């Protein structure tokens, strides 16, 4: 229960911050822009014509759900890559702020166990990001439902991959933030992992750049546990577009990210548990 109380404080404090306000204003503005700029003529479930920013789209008549697939795919990618970047910047100071001198002593003297504090911060941040993701993708789905008379939760399900990817990144940011209590270092760790997670999809190419067996082994060792963000983004885009996704392909990517996040959270708990404040 204390995890919920800590998470609640994290969310409440974040909503009072200007950056989070900016995020939700940006989402609302984007949704409004889409509402007023997109005009779809749907006849019997098929797209008879469409206009974006007043320009007629040169399209033959297609079923509306088929027409929307690339849009949902694009939305999934934007949510994933841009959302992750914004999330890293916006949440970098959460853990250092919660663990700052004068605040952590007070929290630790309350009936909160140290691991509850860490997990509470993690859950609070994920709740914030889940909310932002749900509002943006849910808003788009709703607008398209009004405009095209077709509703799907696929974009929201696709965006869950972005949340999963962020969960892995934030777990590392939390561990680093617990250790050094610096927002800048925490953000740096997040951005580094973000970049690593994107390029890890080309692990074979990277490893083959060198002929040295030692360096290869070292690269393998470093890159193997890194969550494959590009693969996660592709899975998310596929789900958003309503494509059939093979479970055998999804499970290792998703499982890897979850295991990585879990391990990093355990490390963060161990750091906080062993520290003097």
């Amino acid at each position: 229960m204390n995890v919920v109380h800590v998470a609640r404080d994290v969310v409440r404090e974040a909503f009072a911050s200007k950056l989070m306000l900016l995020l939700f204003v940006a989402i609302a503005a984007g949704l409004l822009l889409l509402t007023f700029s997109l005009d779809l003529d749907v006849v019997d479930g098929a797209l008879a014509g469409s206009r974006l920013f007043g320009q007629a789209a040169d399209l033959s008549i297609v079923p509306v759900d088929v027409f929307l697939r690339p849009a949902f795919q694009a939305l999934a990618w934007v949510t994933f890559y841009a959302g992750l970047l914004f999330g890293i910047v916006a949440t970098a100071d959460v853990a250092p702020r919660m663990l700052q001198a004068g605040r952590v002593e007070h929290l630790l003297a309350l009936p909160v166990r140290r691991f509850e504090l860490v997990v509470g911060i993690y859950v609070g941040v994920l709740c914030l990001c889940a909310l932002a993701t749900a509002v943006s993708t849910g808003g788009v789905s709703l607008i398209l439902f009004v405009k095209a008379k077709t509703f799907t939760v696929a974009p929201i399900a696709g965006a869950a991959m972005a949340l999963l990817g962020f969960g892995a990144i934030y777990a590392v940011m939390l561990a680093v933030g617990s250790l050094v209590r610096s927002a800048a270092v925490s953000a740096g760790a997040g951005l580094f992992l973000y970049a690593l997670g994107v390029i890890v999809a080309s692990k074979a190419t990277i490893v083959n750049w060198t002929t040295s067996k030692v360096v290869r082994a070292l690269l393998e060792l470093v890159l193997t546990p890194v969550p494959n963000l590009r693969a996660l983004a592709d899975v998310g885009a596929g789900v958003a577009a309503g494509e059939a996704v093979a479970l055998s392909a999804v499970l290792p990517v998703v499982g890897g990210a979850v295991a990585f996040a879990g391990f990093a959270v355990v490390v963060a708990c161990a750091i906080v548990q062993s520290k003097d404040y």
Partner: protein
Amino acid sequence: MPDASPEPRDAALVARGLKKRFGATLAVDGIDVVVPKGARFGLIGPNGAGKTTFIKLLLGICKKDEGSVVVLGGDPDDTAVRRRIGYLPERLAIPPSFSALAFLDGVARIKGIPSSRRRAEIRDTLALVGLEEVAWGRATGGYSKGMRQRTGLAAALLGQPDLLVLDEPTDGIDPLGRRQIREVILQAGRRGATIFLNSHLLAETERVCDHVAVLHKGRVVKAGALVSLRRTDAFRVVFARRLKDGPDDDDGAAARQRAVDAGFVPQPGDDGDDMWSTSFIGTDAVALSAALQAALGRGLVVVEVSPALVDLETILEQSMGADAAAASTAKEQAA
């Protein structure tokens, strides 16, 4: 310096052989302290004596290297024990975007105060610590230092804790506000709560506490009931300037001489307009009575007799001086 009484089972807090090292610095060097239940315990000492580290060790915020701590009969890491503790850290950082109500709501939830009385208790506590009602809903980022301190004190008082640990509670509060805070602390004490106070304001510690420990270089150099620590081996006896049968315009010289003859030592710095102070050296009440009888027999008028007490500043100075002398002797012996 171990405090032999009371027995630990009657104690709110027991620390035995507590040690904490930060790198090469021994911040806490084998502290033994017993704080009786319901006591108002004051921790005093110079800057860097290890007072805040000691408090953090007691609450499990810092990990001890050696020794043991029992708080309210249990382990300070036990959440059931911590539910019964109210703590105000030295520099409490309240999220600036939170109002006092929002901050205390979070604290009350964690302390497990039922929702049915949470709101009322928060409001009552804020009123108790003297935070103006118009400020309750405002962001604490705009609060003065004193207002933040009052909010922190309210957080510590929530849930009516059995042990109240206050690290510089009146820091940043004006003299009148200090008096109000002191009354709030004493009120908690009257309710039966044990008070553990760390304050650099010795007069405040003297007014609030009934037990004191002096910490110097990570060690307790003096501890005990305040009344015992303040007592000296003398009595203060105040005489009227005029003699029982003397003239009204007597300058007191005759009376003074007679008092000296009776065995009293004049204390000129403590004189009043129509009376003057003396000391009677010794703790034997029978000898004091005999001296007083001799004084009365000489026509002196006794105004007041009380044990001669020293203030905390003197106790602190004496303790540190004695500790420095002991350290110097130990060094010489080692050499």
